[in-house]
């Protein structure tokens, strides 16, 4: 069976199909579409939020863990057990308390203070003071 008798007829049919316009959507269909779009957008936003949240809650190293590994390498076991580890443990305890209370900046301050305390506790402060004294004496003379 032949659909078109001539090329002209076929061309006119194609032209007619191309000119057909979709009928305008009914009010109910437009509402359905809006609901669907809103649902999809909400889902997208919630997914993105979850992704960001997961990134925030991701596994990270505890404060002082790098210091602890450095101290384990540098100092004796006794020094680490009696001085380094208690200082870091105190810092972590205070840091966790501050984070639990939602005080992010206090937690940052505690982290910085912990570093200073460790520095002071291990006597490096005195060493630097001694070196500075030697430097000052040598420059005065």
């Amino acid at each position, binding site marked *: 069976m032949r659909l078109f008798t001539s090329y002209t007829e076929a061309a006119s049919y194609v032209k007619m199909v191309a000119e057909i316009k979709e009928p305008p959507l009914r009010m109910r269909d437009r509402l359905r579409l809006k609901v669907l779009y809103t649902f999809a957008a909400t889902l997208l936003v919630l997914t993105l939020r979850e992704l960001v949240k997961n990134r925030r809650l991701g596994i990270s190293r505890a404060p002082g863990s790098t210091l602890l590994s450095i101290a384990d390498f540098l100092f004796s076991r*006794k020094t680490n057990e*009696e001085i380094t580890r208690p200082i870091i443990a105190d810092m*972590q*305890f205070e840091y966790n308390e501050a984070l639990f209370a939602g005080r992010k900046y206090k937690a940052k301050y505690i982290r910085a*203070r912990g570093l200073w305390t460790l520095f*002071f506790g291990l006597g490096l402060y005195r060493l630097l003071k001694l070196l500075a004294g030697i430097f000052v004496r040598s420059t005065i003379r």
Partner: protein
Amino acid sequence: MKKPNRSQNDIPNLSAKEAAILDLLLNRPCAEMYGLELVQSSRNKLKRGTVYVTLSRMQEKGYVESRLEEQKTNVSGLPRRLYRVTGYGQRVYEACQLAREALRLRIEGLGGAL
């Protein structure tokens, strides 16, 4: 526990910081305290940076002993260390208090005589 290295002829000495720590540990209802608790309740007599050095020295002298706290399952972070006074530490503290009191009375007596 490691045995403190002291001989029979050693006269126990107590610095101001050590006396402050023993005072805090002895005059508390709870026998054990954390280092941070000692700092917080010392009213600026003790510093965070030096308290553990002092406690370590006191452990060597046999005035205090320590143990690690039991780690709870839902708490993160390193286990903290609890300190308590030994019998020897208590006797040294009491002897130092008596000696200080005797010295004060002696000085006051001399002041009165002069």
